[in-house]
C-alpha cells in the first residue's frame, strides 16, 4: 500500500516548508519513525520521521523547493506491499531502475551501468590531443544535479586545491574517473574551457542558475586550442584578475535564510538611525544589590537585559506606532507586543520571540529570555519560538559594542540595541562632573512607518524609564 507523505506543518503559524535535503533516495528502505527528509521553515530545520515502514517509492518535491503545508512531497510503499510487486529477487528493492537518482555501487563493486555509459579508460580514437584526454562520460546519468553527493564527498586533495586555485565549482564538473570521480585533469579541463565562465559559476551563480552556465561541454574532447595549464594567461587578460585562493564555507540552510532576510529587509525598509545616551548608574546599583538574591530565588542570572526589555515594552505601549508594520494596505498597528531577542547561536543568528512580553514583570522577562537563549544555543528552538515578533531588541553590549546600526527584522518598525555599559565622566546637576555608568541605546526604524519625531520621542521615553529609580519590586 502506498502512503503519500505531505509537507508537515512545523509550527502553528507556518504555512509552507522547504525540502532542505532528502535523507533517502527512491528505492531506499525506511523504518517507521526513521528521519527521511529534512524540512526547513524560517530558521528551523527539522528532520521528519516516517509515519510508516516501507520503501521510498517516489520523491515529488525536490530539494530546495518550497511548497504549502499539506502538499504531497513523497510516496512510501509500505512493507509487504512493495516487495513482491517491484522485485522478483526479493531483497533487491533498491535495484529497481531509479531513473533520476544514480545508484552508487559500494566500493569495490562493479558498477552496473548500461554498456554504452561505460567510462573505461577513455581512449581517444583519432583525436590528435595526446595525453590526458578529457572525455566526458557519454550520456548524462541523471537529470538533476551533475554530481551525486557521493562524488563530491570523495574529492582528492589535488582536485580540491586545483578547484580552489581556478575557482571551479566542483558541482559543475563532470567526473571522468572511477565511479564518476572528478579527477585533477577534469578540473584542469574545466578551467581551460572557460576560466571566466568557471569563475562566474563558482562565485556568483545561485544554485538554480549554475547548470546553464556550467563551463562543461558534455561531449567531445577538449578543444585543441584550449591551453591545458591554468597558469597560461590568455591574451588580453590581466595577470592580476586570477582568483585569490581562499576557503569556501558552504552555506547552511540557516545562513542562506539569514542572508536572504538581511538583503530583503535592507532593500525594502528605508532604515533610519538614532541614538540616546542613558545614565544607568541607579539601575546598575540596583542590579548589583539584587543579583545574588535573584539568582538564588529564580535560578537565572540577573542582568540589565530584562530591565531593558521591560522598559522597551512600556515605551512601545506609549508609542504604539513603533509596534507596527508597513503593509501595502497601510500601516498596521499591532495589538500584541511580541519582543524578539537576537541571539548568536554558533555561526547563526536567531531571534526567538517572547510572546505577549507586556504580560511579564522584569523577573518574568529574565526567566523567559533565559529559557529562549538556552533553547537557541542548544539548537532546540522551534518554529513557534521564532515567529510572530513585532519588535526586536539586541544586546549588542554583550559583545563589547558601544554603538551599532542594526538591520530591521523584516516586517517590524523598529529594533533597538542595548550597548555596553561604560563608566564615563558626565555633567550632572547643572555643571558638576561625575563618573556615571552610561549606556548607549541605538534604534533603527522603518522610515515608512514612523518619522524621526516619533522615533526620538520613543527613545527619550525609553531613556527616562531606564533612568528612573526602579521600584524594589520588579
Amino acid at each position, binding site marked *: 500500500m502506498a502512503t503519500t507523505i505531505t509537507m508537515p506543518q512545523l509550527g502553528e503559524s507556518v504555512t509552507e516548508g522547504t525540502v532542505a535535503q532528502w535523507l533517502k533516495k527512491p528505492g531506499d528502505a525506511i523504518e517507521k519513525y526513521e528521519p527521511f527528509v529534512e524540512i526547513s521553515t524560517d530558521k528551523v530545520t527539522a528532520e521528519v520521521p516516517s509515519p510508516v515502514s516501507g520503501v521510498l517509492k517516489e520523491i515529488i518535491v525536490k530539494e530546495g523547493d518550497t511548497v504549502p503545508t499539506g502538499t504531497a512531497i513523497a510516496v512510501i510503499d509500505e512493507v509487504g506491499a512493495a516487495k513482491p510487486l517491484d522485485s522478483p529477487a526479493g531483497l533487491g528493492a533498491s535495484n529497481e531502475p531509479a531513473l533520476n537518482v544514480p545508484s552508487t555501487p559500494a566500493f569495490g563493486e562493479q558498477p552496473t551501468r548500461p554498456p554504452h555509459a561505460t567510462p573505461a*579508460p577513455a*581512449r581517444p580514437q583519432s583525436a590528435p590531443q595526446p*595525453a*590526458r584526454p578529457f572525455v566526458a562520460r557519454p550520456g548524462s546519468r541523471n537529470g538533476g544535479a551533475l554530481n551525486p553527493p557521493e562524488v563530491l564527498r570523495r574529492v*582528492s586533495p*589535488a582536485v580540491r586545491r586545483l578547484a580552489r586555485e581556478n575557482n571551479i565549482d566542483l558541482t559543475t564538473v563532470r567526473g571522468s*574517473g*572511477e565511479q564518476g570521480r572528478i579527477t585533477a585533469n577534469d578540473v584542469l579541463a574545466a578551467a581551460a574551457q572557460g576560466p571566466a565562465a568557471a569563475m562566474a559559476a563558482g562565485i556568483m551563480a545561485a544554485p538554480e542558475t549554475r547548470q546553464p552556465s556550467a563551463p562543461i561541454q558534455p561531449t567531445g574532447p577538449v578543444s585543441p586550442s584550449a591551453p591545458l595549464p591554468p597558469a597560461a594567461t590568455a591574451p588580453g587578460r590581466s595577470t592580476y584578475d586570477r582568483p585569490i585562493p581562499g576557503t569556501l564555507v558552504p552555506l547552511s540552510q540557516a545562513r542562506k535564510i539569514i542572508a536572504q532576510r538581511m538583503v530583503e529587509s535592507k532593500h525594502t525598509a528605508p532604515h533610519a538611525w538614532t541614538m540616546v545616551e542613558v545614565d544607568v548608574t541607579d539601575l546598575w546599583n540596583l542590579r548589583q544589590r539584587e543579583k545574588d538574591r535573584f539568582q538564588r530565588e529564580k535560578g537565572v542570572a540577573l542582568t540589565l537585559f530584562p530591565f531593558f526589555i521591560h522598559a522597551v515594552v512600556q515605551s512601545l505601549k506609549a508609542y504604539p506606532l513603533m509596534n507596527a508594520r508597513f503593509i501595502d494596505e497601510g500601516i498596521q498597528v499591532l495589538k500584541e507586543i511580541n519582543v524578539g531577542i537576537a541571539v548568536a547561536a554558533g555561526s547563526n543568528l536567531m531571534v526567538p520571540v517572547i510572546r505577549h512580553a507586556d504580560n511579564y514583570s522584569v523577573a518574568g522577562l529574565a526567566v523567559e529570555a533565559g529559557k529562549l537563549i538556552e533553547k537557541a544555543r542548544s539548537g532546540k528552538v522551534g518554529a513557534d519560538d521564532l515567529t510572530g515578533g513585532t519588535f526586536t531588541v539586541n544586546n549588542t553590549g554583550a559583545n563589547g559594542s558601544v554603538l551599532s546600526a542594526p538591520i530591521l527584522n523584516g516586517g517590524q518598525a523598529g529594533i533597538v540595541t542595548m550597548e555596553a555599559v561604560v563608566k564615563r565622566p558626565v555633567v550632572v546637576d547643572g555643571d558638576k562632573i561625575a563618573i556615571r555608568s552610561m549606556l548607549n541605546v541605538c534604534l533603527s526604524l522603518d522610515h515608512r512607518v514612523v518619522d524621526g519625531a516619533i522615533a526620538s520621542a520613543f527613545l527619550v521615553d525609553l531613556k527616562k524609564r531606564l533612568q528612573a529609580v526602579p521600584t524594589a519590586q520588579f
Partner: protein
Amino acid sequence: MALATAGTTTMNNVEAVRHTLYEALKADPKTLIMGEDVGARGNVFLITKGFLEEFGPERIIDTPLAEASIVGVAVGMAMEGLRPIAEIQFADFIYPAFNQIVGEAAKTRYRSNGDYTCPLVIRTPYGGGVRGALSHSVSIEALFYHVPGLKIVAPSFPADIKGLLNAAIDDPDPVMFLEHKKTYRLVKGEVPNGHYTIPIGKADVKVAGDALTVVSYGLYVHQAIEAAKQLAADGVSVEVIDLRSIRPMDKTTILESVRKTRKLLIIQEDNKFGGIGAEISAMVAEEAFFDLDAPIRRLAGPDVPAMGYAQTLEEEFMIPTSRMAATMREMVAF
C-alpha cells in the same frame, strides 16, 4: 658523470660488476676484495674469477664462513685507510654481520668525531624469483634502511651498476651495494667505457610519463618498464622511476614526478610492512599532499617469513608484470 673514454660496451649485470671491480683493483692498490669463495672459486657467480691469480691472496681474500668477521675485519681495514670491498655471498647470510654493519661501520665517523671514516663497500646479491627458496631469496634493504650512517644502493642496469659501484668505492663512508641476482644475466645494456661515477642518492627516470608515477628498484624496475610499455601501447603514459639509491632517497625526483602525475604507485619485492614503499609514501604524503589525486598505492611482497621453494609459493610471492600493469590501469582510471 665523468666519461674518460668514448664508446660503450654491451654487458649484462654480472659482467658490469666484474668489469667495475677489476678496473678498481687495477686503478688503486688499496682496494681489495674479501669474502666467501671470492678467491679460488672466483665467486659463486664467477664475478671474481681469475682475480686471485692476477692480484694475489693479499688483495683477493678467501674468508671462513663467518660474516661478522668478514665485515668486522673490513671495517678495521677501512678505518686504517684501505678500500675493502667485502662480499656477503648471499644477502640471506648477512645477519651475523648486522652488529658490525650497524653498530660499527655506520657509527665510525660519528663515534670518532670525524677522526676516522669507514670507506667500506659491502656487496651482496639479493632478491628472489630464482627458485632460491628460504635462504637465497631475501630482500634485506629495509633492515638497514633505518640506520643513519649507511648508504644503500641497488642499481639494476649495467651502466648504473658501474657508475654507482665506482661511487661506492670512492665514498668515504660505508655503502651497501645490493645486486639483484635475477637480473645478473637477465639484464643487458650498454656500459660507457672508462671510469665514471653516478652520484649516490640520485634516482633515474627510466620512462617519462604524465598519468602515473611508478617508483621501484631492482628486478621490478624492469617489469614496471615492461608494464608501462603495455600501457603506452594504449595511449597511457606512465612515468617509471628507478630509485637506484635507496638511501639517501632522491626526494626531488620523486616529488617532481608526483607533482606532475598526481598519482604514485610504489613497487617493491620486499614485504610491505615497514618497507621502502612505506617511507616513500609517508614522504610524499607529507610533502605533496595537495598534489595527490589518488591514494598512494604499494605493490609489495606478502608479509610471510620467507619465500617458499615450491614454484607456486614463489610465484605467489613475486609480482607478475601483468599485475603491475593492471594496478597501473586502475590507478590511471581512478
